[in-house]
């Protein structure tokens, strides 16, 4: 028995090491993100600012500009990537991701409407985004269950819904031009001009939803076996799918509420992590959250450094770096006969 337990523990070692490596990369990319930008600040000075005895100018740059930005990247990356893991598992569809099936766009429309109807109610936007994302994800669930939609139909329907929601955002912005300040930034996605106060509601939503999703990782594993098998193992599959999709909507919605329509993280990161840690949900969720956080932080750093002192929008850098990498991954997978 002991040797069997030993081999089981050994099989868990690889994900644990990867999670440790990802945690370290989040830490390092965070330090780099705080230190570099239009003005470079030595790491010792960065630490001094946090210890309360740094220079005033550096302190203002780090605490008022770079720290909220970093927190935005960490939160949005972790939230969108883990939302992608949940949606893909629940819909049994590796092509599903919050930006692909209209969840992000649904959240975006809700945020636009919220800003138009209740200008200045910033604290309310994560809640509105959650409702929009939930509406998007429930429509997808309805299509997949009631219409008996196949995987491809599901994605096509998601793309169509995404277009409808995006048209809705355009319409809101046309009638209420001041609704979304920096509309193009919102559309492309980014973490500029954030404050810790603006991030606070989204932080709590993401923290609670991620913790809940991790605590339900065993149930998520069972859903991967298919609804019938999951149910026959005593899982109330229908209720659980709804609950997990609500968590995915909360995660994606909270991210959209401050970072706009950032695409790709929810598709790219789960795919990479699935190849590295397999499909077991706990390590997959954790590694995707860390991977998403590190990826967005590094992309944000690149967006500031590539053409400094000018900045590229984060969404542009993310697509330009993540897109080719994802294509390379697909081609490599195809060569390996696993497409």
């Amino acid at each position, binding site marked *: 028995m002991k040797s069997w337990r030993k081999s089981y523990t050994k099989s868990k070692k690889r994900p644990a090491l990867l999670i440790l490596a990802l945690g370290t990369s989040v830490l390092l990319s965070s330090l780099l993100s705080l230190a570099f930008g239009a003005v470079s600040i030595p790491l010792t000075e960065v630490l001094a600012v946090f210890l309360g005895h740094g220079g005033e100018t550096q302190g203002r740059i780090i605490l008022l500009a770079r720290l909220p930005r970093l927190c935005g990247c960490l939160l949005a990356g972790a939230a969108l990537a883990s939302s992608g893991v949940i949606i893909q598992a629940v819909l049994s569809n590796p092509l599903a991701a919050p930006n692909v099936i209209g969840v992000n766009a649904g959240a975006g429309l809700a945020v636009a409407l919220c800003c138009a109807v209740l200008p200045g109610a910033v604290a309310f936007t994560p809640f509105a985004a959650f409702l929009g994302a939930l509406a998007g994800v429930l429509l997808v669930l309805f299509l997949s269950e009631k219409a008996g939609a196949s995987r491809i139909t599901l994605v096509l329907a998601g793309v169509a819904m995404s277009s409808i929601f995006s048209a809705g955002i355009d319409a809101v912005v046309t009638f209420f031009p001041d609704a979304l300040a920096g509309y193009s930034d919102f559309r492309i996605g980014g973490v500029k001009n954030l404050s810790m106060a603006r991030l606070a509601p989204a932080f709590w939503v993401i923290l609670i939803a991620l913790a809940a999703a991790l605590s339900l990782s065993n149930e998520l594993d069972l859903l991967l076996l*298919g609804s019938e098998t999951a149910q026959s193992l*005593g899982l109330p599959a229908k209720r659980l799918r709804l609950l997990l999709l609500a968590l995915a909507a909360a995660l994606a919605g909270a991210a959209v509420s401050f970072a706009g329509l950032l695409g790709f993280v929810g598709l790219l990161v789960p795919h990479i992590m699935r190849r590295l840690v397999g*499909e*077991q949900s706990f390590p997959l969720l954790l590694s995707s959250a860390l991977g998403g956080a590190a990826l967005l932080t590094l992309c944000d750093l690149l967006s500031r450094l590539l053409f400094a002192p000018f900045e590229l929008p984060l969404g542009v850098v993310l697509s330009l770096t993540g897109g080719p990498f994802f294509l390379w991954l697909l081609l490599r997978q195809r060569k390996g006969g696993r497409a």
Partner: protein
Amino acid sequence: MIRLQNLCAGYPGRPVLQDITLNFLPGEVLAIIGPNGCGKSTLLRTANGLLAKTAGQVFLDEAPLEALTPKQIAQKTAYLPQSRAVPNITAQRMVLHGRFPYLSYPRRYRQQDYEMVQKALSWVGATLLADRPLPQLSGGQRQKIYLAMALAQNTETILMDEPTTYLDVSCQLEVMALSRRLAEEGKAVVLVLHDLCLALQYAHRIAVMENGRILQTGTAEEVYLGKQLEQAMGITLGRVETSLGYRYFYK
């Protein structure tokens, strides 16, 4: 023990099962056979509570099925569905899922769960596959792992929907022999089978279905002599006596 009494079930606008009365007895392999679409899989799904009945009753150990929670049902009945997903997890992790009905929050597996998993893997002869990822296994090996998961559930009744489909002959015989061994241990084993010869050779009792109804229930001998199976399937069966008993074949 599962007891079906005047059971009717089906899908919206399409009734399938009509007035089914059948018992799944401990210590017995029961094979359900019949033409495609006659309701064999629907029968298993309804007996396990996966599909709601429209009339009649399903009793699990004399308690109406609807009075039990999904976990209580899963502790008494294991079900191997026809279509099986192949997630990228190790075989032992897959088998460990069979212990889910016994977990309470926070869902940590206990020593007895690991012991049961090891026992189930050894039962199906798959101990050496434990650390292999499921997608890397052959169809027969995956089937064994699914079976091990059902065994890890440690239930009194095991329902299997077409457990021999897509398997080579040697794997089919292994599955059937395993079913007999499970019955000898006192479990009720119910199999939906398409291979009539396997069913007649291995099952203690056979239920012949047609158009959502049970035409006949009996031993292989009774079913062979009754000729209702031949009428339902539109075939002619023959048999030869060997030292190991009768062997059946299509004419």
